[in-house]
């Protein structure tokens, strides 16, 4: 078998000098030539919109795509809590180095040091840029920016815009994108879904898209393709992601040869509104920022009384008890598992015993209702709309839910995948969060990738290619279009009577049960068998309506996505099976300490697992060894 060596392209020298060195030695493209290069950006979330806008500003000829009806609706819009930056505006001892160490440690030592350092370094410039765009961050009376704390850190470095930080940042990026559209450097195509990469002699030269309104396939050739299509949490059906989120773009790129790294690194968020029934189509996050003022507890013993009737002495504030130094701000993976443990212990609250309390009584008594309302008003309202309960009076009930994917397509230091010409940014890549992401770090990463890193690194690649050497009409592309048409025809000919949505929810149940908060070998093997069965059943059961042709057909859109989710889920479980250690969000029951904490195995697993697709055969697992020169490999402790 061919041996793939992963070239990370990390520059030599001290970690704090690498990015500077990279920028100093990289060769820019002659401004007069830039417009000859056509760059395709799939996705208009924070990563995609910021990248497309920045590339447009530099003078490239850019096309951007999203499946929603407008670039402004990308799922980044839903991010609530905030964005980290090592500004040290609070004078509490924050700096780039500390953010770097927190992120490496938070990720349980499964991320590349050089990338993480660069992220921390660029974080400060993101805030500057967003403020200049007019993003209305929260401010103090003196007119300066305010900060709050997030999990996994002892300093206050999170910038926010009430509970709508993602919305405000995305509208900022969208406005920059609009400015470039107006200037003619970017052309945006909405309601377009990615179908496949055009790969010629191993080099990525364009994309095949499906126009969701007409149902037709469209070919776009270009000199580089950037995937910014977000994460794959929606494979679990119930997650905090939007109902349109999908793995199709990254999974199909994987099938074309791009390596998929660490798919088993998934993040379960501790504070979500518990499920209320089987009808549910998604779960709603209650921002982690609530843990700044809310205290998490369950009764010491199973107790059916209403929470306000349970006396203080009979409550177990288990996070404060188990992790005295971080308390309610313990990182997500740890807080989620702790919640599962108390519920498994039969001490959970609410319907089905699947919930814990997040209580604001102390904070309201201490600070007053007005302060709490100014901080979290919109979240409290959202909670009340969904549950019909008033969190000012009775504690919130929360439970962990699938939220974020640390895994994604493998990229090198330049954010290019192993396929020349294919760049991957934002949540779609695997890069910076290791096995667990810290709160408020995803927004930081998407914008570092899009505004600052990609616009610099893409020129190194473009310098090596001749612009426009493939035309949209080139005859070698026809068979590729036929190839993506086939499964669509097959779906249209299915004669079952079940909606793809229902089948997706079955997939979700398998994943949540066996590949969710905790995993073991027997369960993962079982999941693999059940997914295989579901895949067979799918084609017999599914039904897609015919509106006399393939035009605007939401059931078809969904069916195409579910097929990719099912295939991808096998890879997810396989990766979880092969990673025989517990780290971050990946908790294997076989590998735990006596007090139930994750037990890493640095001897055998201090690496990135990148998977290569092999058609019918099992995919190949390729390793990128991780070296920690600056943050010593230690056992993570938040006690």
């Amino acid at each position, binding site marked *: 078998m061919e041996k793939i060596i992963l070239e990370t392209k990390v520059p030599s020298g001290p970690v704090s000098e690498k990015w500077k060195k990279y920028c100093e030695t990289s060769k820019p493209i002659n401004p007069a030539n830039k417009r000859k290069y056509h760059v395709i950006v799939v996705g208009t979330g924070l990563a995609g919109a910021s990248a497309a806008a920045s590339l447009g500003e530099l003078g490239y000829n850019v096309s951007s795509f999203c499946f929603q009806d407008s670039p402004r609706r990308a799922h980044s819009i839903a991010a609530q809590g905030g964005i980290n930056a090592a500004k040290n505006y609070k004078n509490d001892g924050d700096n780039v180095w500390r953010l770097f160490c927190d992120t490496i440690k938070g990720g349980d030592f499964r991320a590349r040091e050089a990338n993480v350092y660069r992220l921390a370094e660029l974080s400060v*410039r993101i805030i*500057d840029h967003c403020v200049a765009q007019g993003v209305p961050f929260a401010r103090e009376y003196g007119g300066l*920016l305010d900060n709050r704390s997030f999990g996994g850190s002892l300093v206050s470095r999170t910038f926010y815009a009430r509970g709508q930080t993602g*919305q405000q940042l995305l509208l900022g990026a969208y406005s920059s994108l609009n400015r470039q559209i*107006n200037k003619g450097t970017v052309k945006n195509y909405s309601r377009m879904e990615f179908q496949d990469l055009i790969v010629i002699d191993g080099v990525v030269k364009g994309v095949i898209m499906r126009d969701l309104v007409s149902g037709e396939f469209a070919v776009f050739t270009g000199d580089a393709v950037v995937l910014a299509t977000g994460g794959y949490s929606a494979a679990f059906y119930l997650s905090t992601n939007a109902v349109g989120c999908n793995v199709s773009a990254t999974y199909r790129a994987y099938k074309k040869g791009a390596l998929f790294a660490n798919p088993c690194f998934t993040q379960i968020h501790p504070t979500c509104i518990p499920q209320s029934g089987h009808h549910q189509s998604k779960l709603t996050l209650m921002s982690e920022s609530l843990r700044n003022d809310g205290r998490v507890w369950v009764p010491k013993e199973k107790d059916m009384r209403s929470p306000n009737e349970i006396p203080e002495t009979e409550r177990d504030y288990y996070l404060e008890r188990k992790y005295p130094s971080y308390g309610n701000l313990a990182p997500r993976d740890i807080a989620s598992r702790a919640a599962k443990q108390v519920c498994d212990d039969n001490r959970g609250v609410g319907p089905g015993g699947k919930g814990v309390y997040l209580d604001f009584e102390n904070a309201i008594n201490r600070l007053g209702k007005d302060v709490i309302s100014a901080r979290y008003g919109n979240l409290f309202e*959202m909670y009340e709309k969904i549950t019909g309960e008033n969190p000012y009076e009775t504690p919130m009930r929360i439970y962990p839910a699938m939220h974020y994917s640390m895994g994604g397509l493998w990229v090198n230091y330049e954010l290019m995948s192993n396929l020349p010409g294919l760049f991957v940014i934002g949540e779609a890549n695997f890069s910076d969060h290791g096995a667990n992401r810290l709160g408020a770090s995803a927004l930081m990463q998407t914008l570092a990738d899009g505004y600052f890193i990609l616009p610099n690194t893409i020129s190194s690649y473009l310098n090596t290619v001749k612009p426009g050497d493939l035309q949209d009409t080139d005859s070698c592309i026809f068979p590729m279009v036929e190839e993506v048409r086939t499964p669509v025809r097959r779906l249209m000919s299915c004669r079952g009577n079940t909606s793809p949505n229902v089948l997706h929810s079955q997939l979700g149940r398998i994943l949540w049960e066996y590949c969710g908060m905790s995993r073991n070998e027997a369960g993962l093997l079982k999941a693999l068998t059940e997914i295989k069965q579901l895949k067979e059943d799918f084609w017999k059961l599914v039904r897609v309506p015919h509106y006399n042709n393939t035009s605007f057909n*939401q059931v078809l859109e969904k069916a195409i996505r579910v097929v990719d989710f099912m295939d991808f889920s096998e890879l997810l479980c396989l990766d979880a099976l092969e990673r025989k250690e517990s780290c971050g969000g990946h908790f294997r029951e076989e590998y735990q300490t006596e007090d139930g904490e994750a037990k890493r195995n640095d001897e055998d697993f201090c690496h990135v697992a990148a998977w290569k697709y092999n058609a019918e055969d099992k995919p190949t697992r390729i390793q990128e060894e991780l070296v920690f020169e600056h943050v010593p490999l230690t056992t993570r402790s938040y006690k």
Partner: protein
Amino acid sequence: MNKETRNYKILLWREPHGKVFFKGEMHGAFVTENISGISPDMSFLEMLDILNDRILSRNDHPVCFESDCREGICGACSLVINGVAHGRQTGTTTCQLHMRSFKSGSTIVVEPFRARSFPVIRDLVVDRSALDRIMQAGGYISVNVGSAPDAHSILVDKKSADQAFEAAACIGCGACVAMCKNSSAMLFVGAKISQLSKLPQGQPERYERVKRMVEQMQVEGFGGCSNTMACEAVCPKGITTKVISELNWEFLKMTLKS
């Protein structure tokens, strides 16, 4: 878990299938669907999901409607429910409605957002890209990546920052347009103008911005404002007609300046 179940009669606007599909043309009609076994904890869109699953399993065509985040922030969901954009509950998007606020046995009428500038795509799905084009005309501050000064070199007093934030909360759903008898987009445009004119960063392009956005609004065929305030009443994000006064004022100042 709530064991109660409810039944409804739903009058759904349908674009009849079987016809050749023309974007923007309306040849729709209402179709009645009866649905039972609905939990009060279900969201309105989950009820429609279930209805669609049932329509599909009887071998028929599910109704098309839009949604994405399902938590009231992306602006994808639309629908006029019982005559009101996003339904009768104030300050709420369609995706945040729950069946507990619809009486069992009642009839619910569901229509698309209708407006001259929002051509129907199918059933309840309309094309709102005209709103994007208004933003493209000038809804931004011209700043290139890399050129920004330190964030703290720009001070914004808390009051202006809070007001800018409130205007910036618009989710671009278009309910204001759908509810306005003139199909005016003044609330939507006013929100952006208000946000950017409150901030020091927005000053240099202040008048050029209002000029361009208003021009584009007219090109797209949105009507003028005749102060019925229907927009404010349905806006899920509490944007008030104060932003329309501000828009008019900014526009006037622009005309006086030029």
